[in-house]
């Protein structure tokens, strides 16, 4: 192969034979086509600008490019001049940096447009378009060559080779998928996990878990939560900042007048008109955080599922299919609200393995 290299002809004009000190000859025709010789006013489809317009365009474009130059400098100066560190200074720095960058970019863009429209010719060039398909001869050649190559390689003639190669590829192809297995936990864990929340666990002292106010962490004395229509966002004691626990265990606690409660609410699980529902919407899991006192409606702000809090949080509107599960609560010896058990059914969005947990609970006489 290498023997042939010297036979490759160099285009004459590219062979450097220049004597040092002589003017540079033209070295290449590679980059520029013939039409590039400016002033060729007779090229069809190239309509040159008149010199007056071009001159004006040059001036405007130059002005705009100068604006870009100055704004670019202003950007760098702003970076040094305006420090950050609080909201107000971040705002000023942002204005200075962004303002100068915007001005630089937009004036550069405008300058380029002026250049194209006022200095460059108006073009209406025509180019032939050919069918995308190769001609028949080429196709035939490629087809033949393909078959010939396949035959030469032996892949058609030697099935053992072909089959073992295919078989060899399969496990290698699966290997990356197998590697992904540890992205998730053990299968045995997960549908079960979804059925329980931390409300089902007793505290370390073996007591029922207290309901505490979200944010402050203060336990709630039933006697103090006594104005009908009152509402609290509640989290489990000991898990105030555990997002994984909160994603299932957050509650909405509402105080009713006892006569307001309807049959959908399990009265055994209330205390003196105080009812606790899961705050996690049964549609897709947003916190159902809005409450309308007069109608007793709990509304999820994401997709507007609406639940009747007085009637077991049954769905009265929207895409949620199931009521918000009710948590059994009572008071401990000090008068604080506690959970006496877990939710009877899984909280939050539906999942495939969930099944009709509500029906199972009804069959078991209202106990989980």
């Amino acid at each position: 192969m290498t023997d042939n290299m010297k036979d490759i002809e160099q285009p004459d004009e590219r062979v450097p034979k220049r004597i040092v000190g002589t003017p540079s000859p033209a070295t290449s025709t590679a980059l520029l086509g013939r039409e590039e010789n400016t002033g060729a006013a007779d090229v069809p489809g190239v309509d040159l600008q008149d010199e007056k317009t071009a001159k004006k365009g040059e001036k405007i474009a130059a002005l705009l490019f100068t604006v870009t130059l100055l704004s670019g400098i202003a950007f760098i100066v702003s970076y040094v001049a305006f420090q950050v560190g609080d909201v107000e200074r971040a705002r000023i720095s942002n204005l200075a940096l962004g303002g100068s960058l915007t001005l630089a970019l937009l004036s550069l863009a405008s300058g380029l447009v002026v250049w194209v429209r006022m200095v460059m010719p108006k073009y209406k060039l025509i180019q032939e378009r050919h069918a995308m398909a190769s001609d028949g001869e080429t196709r035939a050649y490629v087809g033949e060559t393909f078959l010939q190559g396949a035959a030469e390689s032996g892949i058609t003639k030697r099935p053992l080779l072909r089959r073992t190669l295919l078989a060899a590829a399969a496990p290698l192809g699966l290997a990356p998928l197998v590697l992904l297995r540890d992205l998730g936990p053990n299968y045995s864990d997960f549908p079960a996990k979804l059925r329980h929340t931390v409300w089902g666990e007793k505290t370390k002292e073996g007591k029922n878990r207290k309901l505490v106010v979200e944010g402050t962490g203060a336990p709630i004395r039933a006697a103090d939560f006594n104005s009908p229509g009152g509402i609290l966002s509640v989290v489990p004691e000991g898990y105030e900042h555990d997002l994984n626990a909160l994603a299932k265990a957050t509650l909405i606690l509402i105080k009713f007048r006892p006569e307001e409660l309807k049959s959908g609410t399990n009265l055994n699980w209330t205390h003196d008109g105080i009812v606790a529902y899961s705050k996690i919407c049964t549609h897709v899991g947003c916190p159902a955080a809005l409450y309308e006192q007069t109608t007793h409606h709990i509304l999820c702000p994401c997709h507007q599922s609406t639940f009747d809090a007085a009637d077991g949080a049954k769905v009265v509107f929207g895409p949620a299919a199931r009521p918000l599960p009710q948590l059994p609560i009572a008071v401990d010896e000090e008068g604080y609200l506690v959970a006496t058990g877990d939710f009877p059914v899984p909280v939050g969005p539906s999942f495939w393995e969930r099944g009709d947990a509500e029906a199972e609970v009804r069959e078991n006489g209202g106990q989980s």
Partner: protein
Amino acid sequence: MSHSTAGVPKPIAGPSAYLDDRLGAGNFLRRNLRKVFPDHWSFLLGEIALYSFIVLLLTGTFLTFFFKPSMEHVIYDGSYEALKGVGMSAAYASALEISFDIRGGLLMRQMHHWAALLFIAGMMVHMLRVFFTGAYRKPRELNWIIGVIMLSLALFEGLTGYSLPDDLLSGAGLRITEGVAISLPLVGTWITFFLFGGEYPGEDIIARFYSLHILLIPGVLLALISAHMILMWVQKHTQMPGKGRTNNNVVGAPFYPAFMAKAGAYFMFTFGVIALLGTFAQINPIWLFGPYTPADISAGSQPDYYMGFLEGSLRLMPSWEINIFGYTLALSVIIPALVPLGIVMTGLALYPFIEQWITGDRREHHVADRPRNNPHRTAIGMAGITFYGLLWLLGANDEISWTFHVSLNWTTYVGRVLIFVGPVIAYIITYRICLGLQRSDAAIIGHGVESGVIKRLPHGEYIEVHVPPAEDIEAHMRGKEPIPMISGVDTEPGGIPPKGLRGPIGKLKAKMSKAYGGEKIPLDDGHGHGPAHDDAGEHAAVGATEDKSITH
């Protein structure tokens, strides 16, 4: 082209020769330097998306230097007073740091977000342009498919990016994503647990979304964008019908220097507008939302606009759920999450092939259709836009209800009807408008343009003088072609239809072909052919001698 290079300056000629000796680039450039690009404002829409993507790469790279994709619990101690001492994820803390403690950080964050919005908006309008002008037809079907894949990926890219700062609003989006994923039949729980590394929210999702967002999806997008551009380059751009433009040529400006400079200017404009928005239009002020907790949410939470149609369909759905054999099928989630997206994306992907099947048209098309000239396609497109647009609007039905003081529940009830009726109405109206516009074209070709000159004839009658349309406008209108039909659809009753049009599917195909194809309003209907000079009988005086200075 022997020796015309005398003028090439040495600093250019030298390196050029060096490269050409090694790459043979001259041959490529010879063919492509003066490659012609046709002009039309609508051909630039895709470039918005392209340049936004470049801005996304630039600003995104900057952000990666400072962002910490970690859900580790930290106590904030930065310079934003309102959140000092508050517990939050390291991701949120670093997003705050980018906003307040790094010079240019806020600008880059806001530009990144605006560029993302513009990226998807650019893709959408570009896709609509391609659809309505039929530019997806052979040989460009593959590029169309690449485009549909890119749009789907971009939605996912947006979703993953939106979730990264781990503020209260982005968390709400993530929670909805989880709620949708877990409700999928059979695989939902698996998918969710694998995605989140266990139960929601877990400790892994930010880091996983991060690698998807900055590496995997943009990598695939970059590859597809390259393929998209190469195919566009090889197949050459379509052109609008007009004077001298045929299916066998391209008329326009050369790549070098004109198109190159225009493209550069357009990049700078896109970049500049994103910088403008990033500077003056606040977007996603994460510091106001506070850190994420699954226990809280703010009313009026909205996703970025491109997710709005999914939000709307979730809100619209009635509460259907089926329990069977101990398993749960959450139709109220699965249907709205998958069906509209499926209809829109699958419909887009298949449209070129369905159209080919109906019209039997296997020819190459390089001249774009004017939307009015294929009324069924345009009407289908508008029905699709209406479907999507209604879902999108209903994704903000709480805002609509609040702003216009209408019942929230009624926005949903009305929406449930409109989502079916709206597209049909849009279809009919669009179809009629298209035919009307075709008639107006036919009138201009047949009768000329009203000149505003009133003429009194010898016998006392007044007429308005019509003049022939300007040459370029007429050429543009005459670019119209009848939409092809499968041959043999016009079989006489009782006659034997050709093979392939028998049987129920064949008959349906023939029927659809006949409805879809053909010439609805011929340009020269009833007026013979050619210019309007022959029409003197009707409107009189379309004189070649008349003043041609009509405005257009």
